[in-house]
């Protein structure tokens, strides 16, 4: 451990000019202890990762830190953040994150939320937009548009892993994660992330039945971005979602699935960059 730290230090010392340093701090939010990673300086950008955790430590963050202080909480039950029994839903998590904004004394916050992270952003904004400036939502989950017999969101638990991968990615070779290549530590992280996601999103399945009726309360500028080939939630779901948020814009990215920022990072930034300005 000690040797590793020593070896890592010169790298950090050599890099600061081009690459901002990440700091980790733990916040007590109600009964949960939430680890928050922060990088860069500038306008606050709250990044809420997806259930697949593809966002932290990516070139995307490097790009964002050029103009922003990027604040990345690990959702309770992910990484080292704890998931107490009192947290049973995404709705609960949104209250914790609103508390986090208060504790960090953040105002004029832009939220960048991916998939379940986008759902959390909407849950937050429908409760209190006072400290928010903009929402950028990438394939957000959280509502149900269709009727009782419609499957709005594909059942990721019902299908074989290889089938789910094809639903998530337009080109499966772009999935940064290959399950059979994971180290023991990575496999444990992945297992815990999936358990937490199931615990919070199994039923009602990846949505809060009340949320769609509250979206009128999102009073900040909102952009919804969708992969044209998303097999988990179709772009039509995204368009309907965007329509429910007053004034929200919708953008499509071709040749991309549920994680357009992973599959088409350049096209993604081309849409996101002007929105963040």
């Amino acid at each position: 451990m000690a040797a590793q730290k020593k070896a890592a230090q010169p790298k950090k010392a050599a890099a600061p000019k081009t690459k901002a340093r990440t700091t980790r701090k733990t916040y007590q939010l109600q009964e949960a202890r939430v680890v928050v990673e922060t990088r860069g300086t500038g306008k606050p950008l709250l990044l809420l990762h997806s259930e697949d955790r593809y966002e932290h430590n990516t070139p995307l963050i490097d790009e964002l830190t050029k103009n922003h202080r990027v604040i990345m909480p690990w959702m309770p039950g992910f990484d080292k953040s704890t998931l107490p029994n009192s947290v049973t839903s995404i709705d609960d998590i949104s209250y914790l994150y609103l508390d986090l904004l208060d504790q960090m004394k953040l105002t004029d916050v832009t939220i960048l939320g991916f998939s379940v992270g986008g759902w959390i952003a909407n849950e937050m904004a429908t409760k209190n937009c006072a400290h928010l400036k903009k929402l950028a939502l990438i394939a957000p989950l959280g509502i149900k548009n269709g009727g009782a017999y419609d499957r709005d969101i594909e059942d990721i638990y019902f299908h074989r892993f290889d089938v789910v991968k094809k639903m998530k990615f337009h080109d499966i070779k772009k999935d940064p994660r290959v399950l059979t290549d994971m180290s023991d530590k990575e496999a444990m992280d992945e297992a815990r992330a999936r358990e937490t996601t199931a615990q919070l999103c199994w039923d009602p399945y990846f949505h809060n039945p009340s949320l769609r009726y509250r979206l009128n309360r999102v009073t900040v500028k909102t952009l919804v971005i969708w992969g044209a080939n998303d097999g988990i939630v179709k772009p039509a779901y995204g368009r309907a979602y965007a329509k429910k948020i007053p004034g929200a814009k919708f953008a499509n990215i071709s040749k991309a699935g549920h994680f357009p920022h992973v599959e088409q990072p350049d096209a993604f930034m081309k849409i996101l960059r002007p929105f963040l300005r």
Partner: protein
Amino acid sequence: MEFYHFTEFPWPYLPPEDEYTSMRVNLPNNVYDPNIGADLYNSYLDQHLLADELGLNCMLNEHHQTATCMNSAAPLSVAIVARETKQARICILGNPAANLRDPIRCAEEMAMIDNISHGRLECGFVRGVPYELFGSNCNPTETSARLWESIDLMKKAWTTHDGPFNYEGRWIHKRQVNVWPRPYQEPHMPIWMTGGSDVNHATRSVESGYTFTMFLTPTTGMKKMFDGVRANLKKKGLPKPSDDLFAFMPLVAVGETEEEALKFVQQVFWYVTHNKAEPQFRAPPGYVETELYANFLSGKFSGGRTDAIRTKGMEYFRENGVAVYGTPDQVVKQLKNIYKDIGGFGHLIAMLHSGDMPYKDAAKSMKLFAKEVAPQLRGLGNVSDKVGPLKDRGRPIPAAKFSGRTAALEGARAKAGVTVRSPNKKKSKAA
């Protein structure tokens, strides 16, 4: 030792295995033909009537969305068996208590069956296999804790006799719980549990006075678990649990000759060979421990017991005590060895039927088991006389202790010609 007959009510007429991906969860019911199925249901119920005539007890279970088990609403078949049999104890193993949206409905069903059978119900609860979570939509991360919450509430409902109580727990909320009827057995039916490799769960079960059951587990695995429970209780300063707090279910076949037994057991073996399932159905997130799930995700662990046993032959099963078969004397010898090896158990659930085994073959195996095997093993295993509800098994509250007695009730009882019957009075327990 108590003996139970078991068939899982299989639907054995399947397309070739490469034409479907799973026996469970997603197999469409267009492979089920009611013209045949209706007869099968009645044939399986007939097996239990025969078990009763032969002096065996009955065990029935429940699974959903699967051809392995057509008994998708076990309280119904258990109710029929309760009505149609005379003396068998009827074990439901069990009610999927972790997946029940309304455990009070279950408490009512069980109390009714207990009354209809004059106190012959052994009431089992299961967490349910992982496949069940896709149909029930219950959260796999919650099933262990939810199982216990459900059972505790049902027990409270069965033992509360002074009107409604309030319950607002972690998952279940009821403001006016007042179960009618009260159970026939006092204070409530004996409770059974099942389990796999979690010794703490098994210990908690036995400590609560519940009979802990293991299915198709190799002798070494059972020994590890049962010994683990005994050691845990000893650590807590509790007395050694009696044998009847442990139950075991192997595949069983008895023939007049070894050849006949082999023919029978090969038919029962259908249960093992016909268990194809898509891998993700076996491990929804949160159902197993995180480490095991991590290994499953990375491909280090694929199917566990199910895959292992599918690929190994019959003799392997016999050596490991999972299949017990042969002539009556061979079966007696094998069961005595298992009893000794695992340090005792009090209930043997014999899976004497599976697949498309014809009624006549199952009946012959059952008869040989009941007439020539069971009598040689009856005395095996001690019965608890101190712990929990088992001691008063099969008895209603004594009339003298019944607090709801009124003149009107006495008059009604005399007018209806009702007398308190206890069909188990004559049944002597194994010493």
